[in-house]
């Protein structure tokens, strides 16, 4: 009755164990796919290597975020305690050698800024939060949070082909292969 247009998201295949998922991931990696992902109820050691994932760029964000925190804290403490209102305590110097008193603040802001960069950098890199995901259209996909191991290959991958990819997934042990379509 309705004439909703559907767009193909990609193939979803279920694997029977973490080990089968791992071995399947290695095959897909070697086949040269780029736009695909693994779904498992728990983290699997070494799966990033099996998927051929590169090291995340996040540590660099955090490094420079942390450095920004150090510099901010130093500027804040130095400006207020030395430049604007020199605070002399027990005849300790009010100049660059006051810096030991600033170290706790510099340490704390380094941690705080690093923490913020981890959280928001991570959210940006994994594109969260989002309201929906095309894979939620699948009836079996909810088992990825319980006892299901899945691999989804997206249709926008240059190597994707309606028959070839289905055969590939079937050949490496994928079961319940499903063409997931998202509502447009």
């Amino acid at each position: 009755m309705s004439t909703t247009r559907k767009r193909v998201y990609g193939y979803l295949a279920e694997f029977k164990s973490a080990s089968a998922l791992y071995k399947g991931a290695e095959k897909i990696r070697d086949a040269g796919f780029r736009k695909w992902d693994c779904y498992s109820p728990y983290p699997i050691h070494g799966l990033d290597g099996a998927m051929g994932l590169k090291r995340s760029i996040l540590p660099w964000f955090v490094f420079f975020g942390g450095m920004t925190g150090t510099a901010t804290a130093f500027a804040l403490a130095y400006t207020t305690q030395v430049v604007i209102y020199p605070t002399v305590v027990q005849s300790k110097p009010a100049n660059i050698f006051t810096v030991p008193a600033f170290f706790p603040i510099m340490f704390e802001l380094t941690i705080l800024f690093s923490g913020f960069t981890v959280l928001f950098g991570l959210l940006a890199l994994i594109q969260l939060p989002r309201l929906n995901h095309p894979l939620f259209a699948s009836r079996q996909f909810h088992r990825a949070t319980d006892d299901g191991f899945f691999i989804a290959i997206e249709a926008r991958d240059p190597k994707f082909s309606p028959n070839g990819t289905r055969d590939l997934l079937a050949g490496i042990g994928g079961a319940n292969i499903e063409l997931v379509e998202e509502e447009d």
Partner: protein
Amino acid sequence: MAHHHVTSADIAINGDHLDSSKVSKVKSIALGVAAIGTVVSLYLLFLAPEKIQGTYAYSWLYAFYLFLTLSIGGVFWVLLHNVSNASWGTSVRRVFENIGATFPWMFLFCIPLLTPHVQHYLYEWMNIHRAAPGDVKEYLHHHDHLLYNKYWFMNRTFWYGRVAFYAIVFSGVIIGLRKLSTDQDTDPNPGTWRLLKARYHSNYPLIIFALTITFTGFDFAMGLDYTWFSTMWGVYLFAGAALNSMAVGVLVCTWLKSKGHLKHVAGPEQFHVMGKLMFAFTVFWAYITFSQFFLIWYANITEETKYFLIRNTGNWNTAMYFLLFGHFVVPFVVLLQAWLKRNPKLLSIVAIYTLCMHALDHYLIIIPERGISLGKINPEVFGDIQVSIPGAFWGDIFAFITIGAAFVFFLLRALGQHSLYPNRDPRILESANASN
């Protein structure tokens, strides 16, 4: 990542033994240097002109305590491995057992420090005790109230008792644990009981460890100036000891791997963990060192500030700044890289660097006290109180080489005695396949 999965076929059934013919040359050189150095040192400590005796007493204490911390740290990593039920480290545990096994031998080098002759130049509180007529406590009550209050801890009987405690009890800990571990290598039916026994007999020794690292620090280093005290002292020395025995462990593992040992069982994953622990203890050292400095700086109490005043007078000031950047900032930034920690050669370079900084750290703990104490004891021989005594650093280098050679010798000896990894440990495969 896609490395070979290690199976029991890869584990040497009778152990991975160091080929003694290949190391015998290094071992004999080390033994020769240590033996000749010790004989010369005994001459310098007891028979040489008084000026040399006095300055060399500090050199000897410096080198002795520097290398002792490495041995103590080796025991710490064994204890920690056992109590934390860690599996990653089973393949490198023997290396740390061997570093720890040098403790009973390295402790022998404190024998000169037990003689009143050498103590005379190092520990002024002992001089006051020895010079006291009649009852020492009664005398101190009237003449030196600080030492009177500290009498319960700082008296010669208790001091010798404590030294005996470190020598006997702490040696007993590592000898016992190492024997338990090495007996497994030849047991046809090893089982898991040693694992549980080692874990049980590593918990209370952690307390013995804490007492040893803290109070050797108090007795040998902090006692140089009886008026000074710091409650951070023990943990400060612990941070340096743990960091640098890990650095020694990294060097030993890299060396063994370059000789074809530890094949299959220690790879990038194990080096990565060891590198992470070095990184953690670099930060911990900085945290503790700064905490000690900060509390003293803020409180500004005369007895406490003198430690830093002495070490920021003259050229010591440059060395202190160098320590701040060299012992913390540089290794912190370098060890942040994950890829570097997985590369044994690069990690070894960092380990050598860290050990150099440890030598500087301990130099700044012991040596700045020399010009002051000796100037107080006998100004006619040593000159008035001064920042440093000219020419005395040659003795420091000599003592460092002597005791360093002994450390190398005893470490190589320990490595050659048994298999280089616990080949029959039930968790050796889990350790070899560890991933982090």
